[in-house]
Structure formats: structure tokens, C-alpha cells
């Protein structure tokens, strides 16, 4: 793994001397092992409804984190980039028979290209203005996707993917699809981790913290701001492709509305801006919390009995609980769950070593 200033203080044994394994290393190892054996031990539900979407959206969130967390440029168009990737990938695969790995790349590449275009305003504007510029991009991209006659299926707006197969590997079981998602996410996460801890990541952070000082150090605003948007869009595009091939099996703009973009933004804010781990923790929080709450509500109903409690009230209560929890965590740790974990890990290290 990359050397360098490690996000969330990953393995730093050198400092501690000896063979002390920091909590992070242990946790990372554990997660990787669990993730690898997941299909063997976990139910369909876990793979299809929890792990796959969380990994995919975590990837998209990580992409957004590069542009927003590291380079400090707010973007509200991440969902639209996912949509571009989704359509590009499914069309490449379904209509032109491009092999899936390449189709995913196509999705990422096209989305990245558009990302660069969308990123250009960032050379002139910042903050809320940029936020709205990217918001506009979100709407315009989705609108174009709706307008262009994509589908060979005439009057349908949704593109279903044909059976998913890579060469002779037939991805018809959930496990197969999970492994595809897992390997792609792992690969891109490693790549991105190296990137953000390299001179490029430092250049982004420098621009974020003091753009003039950065440019005096020889960092080109043009190149690195656009690069940030490019990477963000690329990751979103690949994630979009994964959505089609491994999760919903269909590309449709309705799944990439603005609220999804806001959810992804929420993931990195809750999870931690400028943190790889945070991107995924945030995805867990934003995606799984509502499910968890609805489970709790479901239990409640079965407990009290259907007739005694208005299902509508419970359904709406979910919104309130979710909002309260979001606020709670923001207040508890404005720097995000990643920071929370870091505290916890170092506290544990201190206790252990």
C-alpha cells in the first residue's frame, strides 16, 4: 500500500516499534477477509440489498470526495454522472457487445469527459455558486439523457441489460455479481487511495486550502481542478455501470434524480470530507440507516399489531428519526464518522500498546 501521510492514520507501526499492529491494520484486514468470504456466509439479502449497493454508492461517494473533500470544490451532480455511466455502459455492452470491463471503462470515460466540461466553471467560481452550477449540470445532464432517443426499445425510457457475462464467466448468481462489484471497488479504492496520498492529492488539498500559495508552488489550477472533476465523474460513471450490471439490471434516469446527488454529498459530509474511509462509512450511514429505521418500525408494528398503530405515522416517523440522527452525528462530530473512528482506533491503540 502507498506510503505517505495515510488517511485515518492507517498502519503506522514504525512509530510504535516492534510488530504492534495498529487497530486500523487489524480492522482493514478483518474487513477485507470478511468481504472476500461474504457470499459464503451471508444471505442473498445481505449481498443484494446491503453490500452491493453500499459498495457501489461508496465508490461514487469516494469519487465525490476527491473533488469536494480533497480539492474543496462542491459538486451536486454526482448522480447525473452515475446516470451517464449507467447508460453508456449498458449501451456499449447491450448494443455493441463491448465486454463488460471495457463497457464499465466506457461509462467511466464518457462520464469523466462530461465531468471536465462541468468542472470548467470551477475555475472562476466557488462555494454556493459552484454548488448551483453543478446542480444545473445535474438537471441538464438528466434532461439530455431523457431527450436523446437512447433505447432501441422504442417507447420505453428504461434500458434493461442483457444477461451479464464476461467471456465465459456467467454472472447469473448474486455471488458472481458481488465479486465483480467487490473487485472493481477494491481496485478503484486502492488506486484512489494512492492518488490522494500522492503529489496529486496534495496538490488538490493545497488548492483547497490556499489556491494562490498553491499556484506559486507550481500547481496549475486549471489542470488540477479539472482533474478532480474528471476523477470524480469517472468514479461515478463506473459506479453507474455497476448499478446496471450488478444491482438493478436496468438504466433509467429516474434512479439518478437530484436527491440521490444530495444523498451522495451527504455521505461524504457525514462520513468525513477528505477521507477514503469516510466515503464508505457515509455510504453505510445514508443507505442503511433508513432501512434500519424501517426495520425497527416494522418490528414495532408487528409488536403492537397492525390495527393499533397507523402505518402512515410510522412511515413518516422514519423521516423524523433519520433527520434527528443526521443532526446528532453532525453535532457530535462535524468532521465525520471517519474522525470518530480515528479517535476510537487511537484510543484503542493507546489502551493496547
Amino acid at each position: 500500500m502507498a506510503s505517505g501521510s495515510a488517511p485515518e492514520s492507517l498502519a503506522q507501526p514504525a512509530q510504535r516499534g516492534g510488530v504492534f499492529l495498529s487497530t486500523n491494520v487489524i480492522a482493514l484486514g478483518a474487513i477485507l477477509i470478511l468481504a472476500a468470504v461474504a457470499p459464503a456466509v451471508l444471505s442473498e439479502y445481505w449481498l443484494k440489498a446491503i453490500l452491493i449497493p453500499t459498495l457501489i454508492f461508496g465508490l461514487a461517494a469516494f469519487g465525490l470526495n476527491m473533488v469536494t473533500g480533497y480539492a474543496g470544490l462542491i459538486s451536486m451532480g454526482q448522480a447525473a454522472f452515475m446516470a451517464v455511466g449507467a447508460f453508456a455502459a449498458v449501451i456499449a455492452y447491450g448494443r455493441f457487445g463491448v465486454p463488460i470491463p471495457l463497457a464499465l471503462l466506457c461509462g467511466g470515460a464518457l462520464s469523466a469527459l462530461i465531468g471536465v466540461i462541468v468542472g470548467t466553471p470551477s475555475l472562476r467560481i466557488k462555494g454556493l455558486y459552484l454548488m448551483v452550477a453543478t446542480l444545473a449540470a445535474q438537471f441538464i445532464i438528466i434532461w439530455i439523457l431523457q431527450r436523446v432517443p437512447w433505447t432501441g426499445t422504442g417507447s420505453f425510457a428504461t434500458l434493461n441489460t442483457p444477461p451479464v457475462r464476461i467471456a465465459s464467466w456467467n454472472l447469473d448468481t448474486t455471488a458472481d455479481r458481488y465479486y465483480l462489484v467487490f473487485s472493481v471497488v477494491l481496485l478503484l479504492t486502492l488506486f484512489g487511495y494512492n492518488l490522494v496520498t500522492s503529489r496529486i492529492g496534495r496538490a488538490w488539498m493545497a488548492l483547497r486550502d490556499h489556491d494562490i500559495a498553491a499556484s506559486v508552488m507550481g500547481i496549475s489550477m486549471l489542470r488540477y481542478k479539472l482533474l478532480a472533476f474528471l476523477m470524480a465523474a469517472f468514479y461515478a460513471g463506473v459506479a453507474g455501470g455497476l448499478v446496471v450490471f450488478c444491482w438493478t439490471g436496468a438504466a433509467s434516469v429516474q434512479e439518478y434524480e437530484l436527491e440521490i446527488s444530495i444523498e451522495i454529498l451527504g455521505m461524504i459530509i457525514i462520513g468525513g470530507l477528505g477521507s477514503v474511509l469516510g466515503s464508505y462509512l457515509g455510504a453505510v450511514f445514508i443507505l442503511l440507516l433508513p432501512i434500519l429505521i424501517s426495520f425497527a418500525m416494522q418490528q414495532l408494528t408487528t409488536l403492537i399489531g397492525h390495527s393499533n398503530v397507523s402505518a402512515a405515522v410510522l412511515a413518516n416517523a422514519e423521516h423524523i428519526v433519520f433527520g434527528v440522527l443526521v443532526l446528532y452525528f453532525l453535532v457530535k462530530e462535524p468532521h465525520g464518522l471517519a474522525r470518530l473512528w480515528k479517535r476510537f482506533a487511537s484510543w484503542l491503540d493507546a489502551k493496547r500498546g
Partner: protein
Amino acid sequence: MGDLIYAIELLTTGVFTGLMYSMVALGFVLIFKASSVFNYAQGAMTLFAALTVVGLMPHLGLAGSLLATVAVMCVMAVVAERIVFRPLMGASQLTIFMGTVGFASILEGAAQIVWGTKPQGLKLDIPVEPLKFGELLVSRQDLFAAAVAGVFVGALVWFFRNTRTGLALRAIADDPAAAQVVGIKLRRVWAIAWALAGAIAIAAGVLWGNRIGVHFAMSLIALKALPVLIIGGIDSVAGVIVAGMIVGAAEALGEGFIGTYIGGGVQDVMAYIVALLFLMFRPSGLFGQSTILRV
């Protein structure tokens, strides 16, 4: 009918619609001026206010329910200040933005629990028949809405120019720290700003309710306000009105003249396209203060 009349009709429709957007946008401007935060909850507030007005109308009548709702929104303002701003004071803009997202979620849940999800009609008794000027049709409803919007803006401009709180708000917008030093109570002023935003939410809610009914989807109207903000300049009250009209007009004319050639539906993105153009060529908007680089 002649293209000219047609254009004029589109224009008037558009401008009036635009003024309705301005009403929503005003709420954003207020919060932004007071705390340079983008308040995602403005849409939810509009919904909340409208539902409250409709819900209370049968018991209190329009005037009564309006007054009651004002009270409700003031309470909401204080709550917002307590659970969003006070705890998050000093956190990054994005963090506070996320806070408002959470707050919006709470409001939407509460609104639907209290008032239910059933759509409601909210009809101000203004005749629906349009006024006829020769061939030209102008809706009385729209005229009324425009008037209300005008009044609100006038009041707000006056408020910012002439009242202590208004001046305090501007001071805080310019430099919160300094403002505190000269003894402006941030919390109080923020609460007031939210209360005002609430009041605007009521007006917007009622006007939109009268136009499209009161219903959950109302909170989505807020999105149309964002381009208005950019064009008008995020911190300019007067700008928002002009910008609203521009957006409305652009939408209508775009739909009417461009849309015909590319299969319609242009209206939905026109606002954002115009906003993008402004961002490219006049980032600080029509009346916004442009910031100067300092090393």
C-alpha cells in the same frame, strides 16, 4: 393568433410564474444573508407552512389560520436555530448545509404526521377567468400573486435598509465575528432570520397552493428557486425579483419558441441553462457584490 401576441402571452405567463419562484428564492436569500448558509429546508418549510394554513382554515378561516401559522413558523424558527445553528456554529458551510438537509427531513415527516399526506385544495377566491385585452389573456390569479410578491420584496428591502435587525443581519453577513464584537446577538438575529424565512414560506406556500394545490411535491418547487438565486445574486433581495422574472420569461419563451423544434420540455432546464450562462459571464449575479482577491 399572431406570433407577437403569442410571444407577449408567453412572456406575461412566464414573468408571473417567475415572480412565484422569487417568492421561494427570497427565503433562501434571507438565511444566506444572515448566515451564508444554503438552507435546503426552505422547500420543506414551504410545504409545512402551506399544510398548516390549509389544516387550520376550516377552524379559523383564512385570516385566522394565516396568523396562527405565523406563530407556528416562529416556533419552528426557534427550533431550527436551536437544533441546527447553535450546535453547528463554527462548523463548515457544507456541514451546516447537511444540517439543514436533516432538518428538512424532520419537517417533512412532522408535516405529514400532523396533516396527513392527502392533497388539499387551497383556493383564494379570485375569479379564474382571465382578463381579456383584445386577444391577450392575463390571469387575475397571477396578477394577485405578482402583487403579493411585490409587497413582500418592498417590505424586505425596507427591512434591511431601515430596521436595527435588518442592519444587524447585513452586518453579520459581512463579518460575523465583528458583528458579535459590536454586540449583535447572533442567535437572536438568526432566529429572526429564520422566522422571516418562515413568513416567506407561508406566502409562497399559499400562492403556490392556490396555483397547484397543497401537496408533498410542493417542497420540490424550491429547486426552481436556485437558478433565480444565482442570476439575482445570492445576497440581493431586489435582484431575486428581477431574476425571477428573467427565469420565468426564459422558461416560457424557451418552451414556446425553442421547444417546438426539439420536442418540447425545454421549460424544465431553461432556468438552469440561463443560470449557467450567468455563472460564466457574470458570476456575482445581477446585483450581487463581487468579491475582490486579496493576498
